[in-house]
């Protein structure tokens, strides 16, 4: 195991918590004293920095939402003097105003250190050639990975996105060993390479991929690893947190969140109460050392779960599972939180049905009733009714095991369910109609 900073990365958890508390205390005092926004927020919320006497007092602090960043566009939340700032990144708002993130030199440095630890934990080091195929520019992916890769002494090929054939040529000519890109772009590279008569597995030195910035699944990882012959590591971060910050280590068992940079809460989106390790909830983050744009209890809207126990790599920092959806998509069925992504994930493992599905929720005799409609594939079609009922029962059982709530399944004809371009609207909730 190679650590970038063994002292921090393997620091006992109590020590990490002490460090987090000190950083938090310092942060709230600073913000209360010098940030009109935070002072007002804390006053409205009836909390004073003196009330923060332990890490668990974190829950006394008010939440922050994406809307706060939009409302304060462009620079209402920027904390440091103009002269201290060295960079802006801007995320394009798909809805509403964009959000601006400002960085001090120390912010850039911490961001880079975070990625240096992450990249090292995937086994990359000096001598590796890393192709950065995330976009360079206002988006944080390209520049973030670029700095992180340089910091560990790797050679960077800053290809950014596009011109895939050229990317593949460079990958061969410059003996690229790792790539950072979205999972779908990685599969696209594989397909284009095949059309060019090049096998990524046999004709290149590519062995690792750092993938993220869009949802992906374990199934996709298996496909990438078996087809392209490379190990794929999940990476997480959004521009509000600086950019991509954390990745899985070689154990591929959730991404390590560096406790000295970020305090992690996983909350039930409904009750705002913390959930146990292994249980899914909303990721709420506090950036303990960020300067340009401080972030306290920021509701990311991302759904994940904390992995229990210490990682086999020896790093003591907590690990989070690959994101499994957005809070906006969450459904509450008989009091239980259900995510369409869980249903999607379950269906992917059932060969008798296709990937398309629809969810209909209604209230029957004052009880929530969830119906999942799936398409039966031609290969699975039997003209014997008991076989079909058996298939349906099996899907119902698997969904129940996964969701902890019983579900009715309806078999639909292939091609009969709606197809979506872009964001899918798979849920029809009749309870509110």
């Amino acid at each position, binding site marked *: 195991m190679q650590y970038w900073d063994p002292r921090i990365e393997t620091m006992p958890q109590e020590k990490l918590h002490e460090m987090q508390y000190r950083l938090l205390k310092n942060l709230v005092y600073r913000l209360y004293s010098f940030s009109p926004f935070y002072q007002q927020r804390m006053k409205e919320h009836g909390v004073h920095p003196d009330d923060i006497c332990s890490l668990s007092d974190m829950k006394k602090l008010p939440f922050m939402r994406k809307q706060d960043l939009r409302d304060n566009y462009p620079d209402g939340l920027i904390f440091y003097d103009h002269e201290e700032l060295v960079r802006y990144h801007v995320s394009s708002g798909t809805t509403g105003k964009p959000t601006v993130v400002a960085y001090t030199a120390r912010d850039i440095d911490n961001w880079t250190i975070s990625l240096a630890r992450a990249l090292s934990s995937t086994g990359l080091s000096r001598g590796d050639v890393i192709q950065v195929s995330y976009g360079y520019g206002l988006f944080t992916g390209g520049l973030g990975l670029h700095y992180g890769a340089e910091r560990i002494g790797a050679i960077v090929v800053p290809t950014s996105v596009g011109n895939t054939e050229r990317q593949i040529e460079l990958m061969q000519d410059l003996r690229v060993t790792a790539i950072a890109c979205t999972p779908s772009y990685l599969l696209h590279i594989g397909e284009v390479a095949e059309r060019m008569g090049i096998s990524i597995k046999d004709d290149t030195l590519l062995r690792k991929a750092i993938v993220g910035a869009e949802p992906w699944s374990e199934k996709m990882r298996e496909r990438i690893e078996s087809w392209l012959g490379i190990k794929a590591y999940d990476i997480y971060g959004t521009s509000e947190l600086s950019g991509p910050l954390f990745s899985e280590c070689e154990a591929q068992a959730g991404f390590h969140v560096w406790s000295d940079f970020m305090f992690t809460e996983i909350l039930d989106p409904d009750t705002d109460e913390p959930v146990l390790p292994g249980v899914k909830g909303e990721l709420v983050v506090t950036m303990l050392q960020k300067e340009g744009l401080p972030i306290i209890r920021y509701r990311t809207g991302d759904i994940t779960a904390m992995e229990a126990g210490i990682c086999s790599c020896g790093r003591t920092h907590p690990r989070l599972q690959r994101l499994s959806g957005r809070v906006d998509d969450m459904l509450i069925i008989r009091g239980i939180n259900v995510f369409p992504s869980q249903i999607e994930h379950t269906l992917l493992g059932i060969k008798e049905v296709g990937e398309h599905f629809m969810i209909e929720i209604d209230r029957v005799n004052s009880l929530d009733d969830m119906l999942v409609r799936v398409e*039966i594939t031609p290969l699975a079609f039997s*003209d014997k009714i008991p076989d079909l*009922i058996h298939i349906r029962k099996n899907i119902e059982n698997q969904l129940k095991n996964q969701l902890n709530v019983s579900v009715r399944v309806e*078999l639909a*004809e*292939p091609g009969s369910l709606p197809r979506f371009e872009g964001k899918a609207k798979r849920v029809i909730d009749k309870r509110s109609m």
Partner: protein
Amino acid sequence: MEKESYLIKQVSLFSENKPGRLATMAKAFLDEGINIKAFSIAEADGFGVIRVLVDKTREAYDKLAELGFNVAYTDVIAVIMRDEPGGLYEIAQTLANASINIEYSYAYSGKDKAVLILRVDHVEEAIEHILNAGFNLVRQQEFL
């Protein structure tokens, strides 16, 4: 082989229980000039299976698949029944004696004969027992 000549290709299709699915199928057969010789619908809650014997099996299958139906060929056999009380009993008893399970069946009774269509678990044994018991089986080409 002799027994295989008695296997009849039935076209089966999966259908949701919603208005118009049968009409869609029937219209497709009309357009293609396909004649239905025997037909049944089996229904469960939420979905059904339509089974047909037609004169132009291949055309029927291709047309339905093209329309997006979930469609399959299934081997069935067709036994000529005595068109009088006890006709069904004789055949059912013959198969029961041989411990052959009928997965489903349907029948039609025309001017000249009554025919029982059977889907069984051990089709070759079933053919053997039915022939040995003196019944006649209809071949696919006789449906043309």
